[in-house]
């Protein structure tokens, strides 16, 4: 089908379940509560050594008693990425009433995106290789280094035998897997898809990023803030369950929101830098709007990708300005990364879930990090004084802080 064909119930894709593990802990509700009340999760890092760095803060997922979720050895020994994504998937599947599904197992896919993949495991492989001998590399650990290890673990745990994808293309991997999922459902290649993202950071990541000068030396995340000086790392996993509106109606499932349009693009500008006017992100937003057949003026809320990086935040502001034109100063915008840090690809789905929550409850996430913005900032950043109103349509942005891979997802309320 061509992208301009009118959509029917069979080609409208909806979210019927969501789940996450974030710096707020397990579950969607603590996350939504946190981002609405403006409760931050950026703290001094206590679980690894980083005292001599400029940036000593991060938004870590709090330690959890994993055996309470699943006491089996397979689960307890699994890498953190697998554990978190399984917990998030479990929540999403429950909400989507997975127990009562009648989909054939070959028609259920698992599509996951990640930026760092299994680097937490790879680091252990390298340390064995360097400090010990290659023959002492643990075989069971090595098989977890492949990027698709988490997607496979989910397929094995729930017996989902449809297509299984693992995408690793920067922060926008989250909207890339959503796009692949939406098109696979529209084409009728699959009936339901578990689409999600995960990303974690390690001591080595913190040290390397700090040395590259990417992290905030002042240890605060202030997206769009005038004194922003780099981002704070965050982490987590988030998952949504997708199916067609026809399928959700047929089985009487509660529809959380419709994914009405997705846009993917790239700055194609240079190595490790964003286009100054954010042309990749602007294209992605335009594509998402066009696909949903929605005018920019109809958007009620923008979940920004800004992560407190000097050039990226400015580029996103320019892109929103270019796409929204006269309405740019009116549409409320906020970036959750002032509260949650930059969780790479996981941020994509954090942002998506924040937008779904905004539509569900007509409550938008607070834009934290002060009210002092760039002089040329035209955005209506939704701080504490912002007056809440009904949210029917929200746009979630995604932008890689270097390289310039961009994505946008347009979400719409769907009363079935």
């Amino acid at each position, binding site marked *: *089908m*061509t*992208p*301009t*064909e009118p959509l029917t119930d069979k080609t409208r894709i909806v979210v019927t379940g969501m789940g996450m593990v974030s710096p707020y802990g397990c579950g969607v509700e603590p996350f939504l509560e946190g981002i609405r009340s403006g409760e931050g999760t950026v703290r001094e890092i206590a679980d690894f050594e980083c005292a001599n760095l400029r940036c000593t803060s991060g938004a870590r997922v709090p330690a959890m008693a994993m055996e309470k979720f699943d006491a089996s050895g397979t689960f307890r020994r699994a890498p953190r990425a697998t554990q978190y994504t399984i917990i998030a998937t479990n929540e999403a599947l429950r909400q989507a009433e997975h127990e009562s599904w009648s989909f054939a*197992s070959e028609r259920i896919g698992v599509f996951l995106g990640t*930026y*760092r993949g299994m680097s937490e495991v790879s680091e252990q*492989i*390298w340390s064995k290789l*360097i400090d010990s001998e*290659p*023959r002492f*590399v643990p*075989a069971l650990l*090595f*098989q977890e*280094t*492949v*990027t*698709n*290890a988490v*997607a*496979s673990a989910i*397929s*094995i745990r729930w017996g989902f*035998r*449809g*297509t*299984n994808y*693992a*995408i*690793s*293309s*920067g922060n926008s991997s989250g909207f890339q897997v959503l*796009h*692949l999922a939406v*098109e696979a459902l529209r*084409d009728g290649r699959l009936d339901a898809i578990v689409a999600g993202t995960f990303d974690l950071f390690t*001591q*080595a990541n913190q*040290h*390397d990023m700090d*040395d*590259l000068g990417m992290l905030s030396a002042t240890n605060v995340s202030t997206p769009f803030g005038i004194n922003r000086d780099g981002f704070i790392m965050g982490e987590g996993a988030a998952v949504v369950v997708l199916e067609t509106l026809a399928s959700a109606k047929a089985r009487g499932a509660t529809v959380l929101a419709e994914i009405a349009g997705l846009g*993917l*693009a*790239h*700055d*194609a*500008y240079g*190595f*490790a830098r964003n286009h100054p006017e954010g*042309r990749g992100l602007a*294209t992605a937003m335009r*594509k998402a709007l066009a696909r949903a057949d929605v005018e920019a003026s109809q958007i009620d809320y923008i979940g920004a990708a800004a992560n407190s990086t000097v050039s990226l935040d400015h580029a996103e502001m320019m892109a929103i300005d270019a796409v929204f034109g006269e309405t740019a100063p009116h549409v409320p915008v906020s970036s959750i990364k002032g509260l949650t840090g930059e969780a790479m690809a996981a941020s994509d789905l954090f942002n998506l879930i924040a937008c779904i929550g905004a539509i569900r409850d007509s409550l938008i996430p607070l834009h934290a990090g002060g009210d002092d913005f760039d002089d040329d900032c035209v955005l209506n950043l939704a701080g504490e004084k912002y007056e809440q109103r009904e949210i029917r349509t929200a746009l979630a942005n995604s932008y890689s802080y*270097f*390289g*310039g*891979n961009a994505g946008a997802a347009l979400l719409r309320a769907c009363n079935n």
Partner: protein
Amino acid sequence: MSVFVRRAQYPHVKAPFYPPFGHLQSARGQKTNTGAVVVSALAALTPIGNGCDEFARGLREGRDGVDAISGFDASRHRIRRAAEVTWKLPADSPYSRATEMALAVMAEAMAGARLSTQRYDPRIGVILASNQAGMYATATEYQELSHPYRTAAFASNRTARVLDGAPTATLDLIMARLGAAGPSLNISTACSAGLHALGMAYHMVRRGEVDAVVIVAVEVLTEAALAGFGVLRALTNGAGPRPFDLGRDGTILGEGAAAMIIEPIHSAWYRNATIHAEIAGYGSSTDAVHMTRPDAAGSVRAMRDALGSTSTDDVDWIKAHGTGTPANDSAEAAAIHQVFGERAASIPVTSMKATLGHSLGASGVVEAVGTILSMNGGFIPPTLNVTQVDPACDLDVVAGPSRSHRGATVLANAFGFGGNNASILFRSVN
């Protein structure tokens, strides 16, 4: 809706990839637009030859790409053989060898398709197939650049190398070089990634979402993979792997880079580009059984989906995944028997793993290029090192020299870690 109307949504795109009108009028005369998705350029760097001509000659002659590892000191490893690519990283390159190899095949494919992109074109997508891309390859490199081994801050001339060590940097460089601004995905599903990349491109082009997809695949030999596959006992102790042989005892790692351009047949006609093959079908599935132990049922579904309405009788030969490990080859043979029934014992099956080694994420695309070159060259490349085909596999394995065969339809398989399966059906267009 016409191509023209869709383009109007992106007015900043200066010139169209192909004109909105008259695109059914090919440079070779009036042709009917079949809607086929075709491969209009091929490029490769392989252990048996750099460039498509040398690669095709190597396949036809049955050249063996496996040798003692020379890229780094492998003395600490149990297995010290692999199929390496001779291509050397230029001394002045700030990037990784993998990234430079990817850029080299990308440029060759663009030249082959007679394409030059503009500064910024959201109608061109790129899909990279790689597991490790520009990640650190050797212990020496890892110790120099990564915490906690690194002893000082990054030297300024090494920053680009460090950034390139992050996943996706290879992809970002390709996008910047090409000016391609459409979807840019890095698929990383272990050994099946390459064929998934082709499958995704097939769907994107069929939907009209993009005008063309540039597929780039790359994998270099890393010490982490060498050690990991070593402890998994997946590597052969012999000179090279023996796919489907009674005495097979493991695979061998390889390097490779390959690129392809995928586009609708009418745009290839319009530019008078060489059409190498049609992508006639794509199938993907998951075993959902075990992380490393393959299950035939999953592979069966991938092959059946790729065949679609094409009869198994119309398939001329099969490019097997054929890693040479006991488990993979048994499961793949069982799957071929289930799909092809009585014909399974007589349809020619070949594996390129003994020739090229296993280049993991890149293998699907590298071997797909080899498959198309063989198909168009009128031969089936040999499966090296086979002395006695395992009777339990009961397949017509192309052992010995390459076989002369005017194949027009070939099925390619790629099955990987995590029970992740992909199959693609290629058809010649001439």
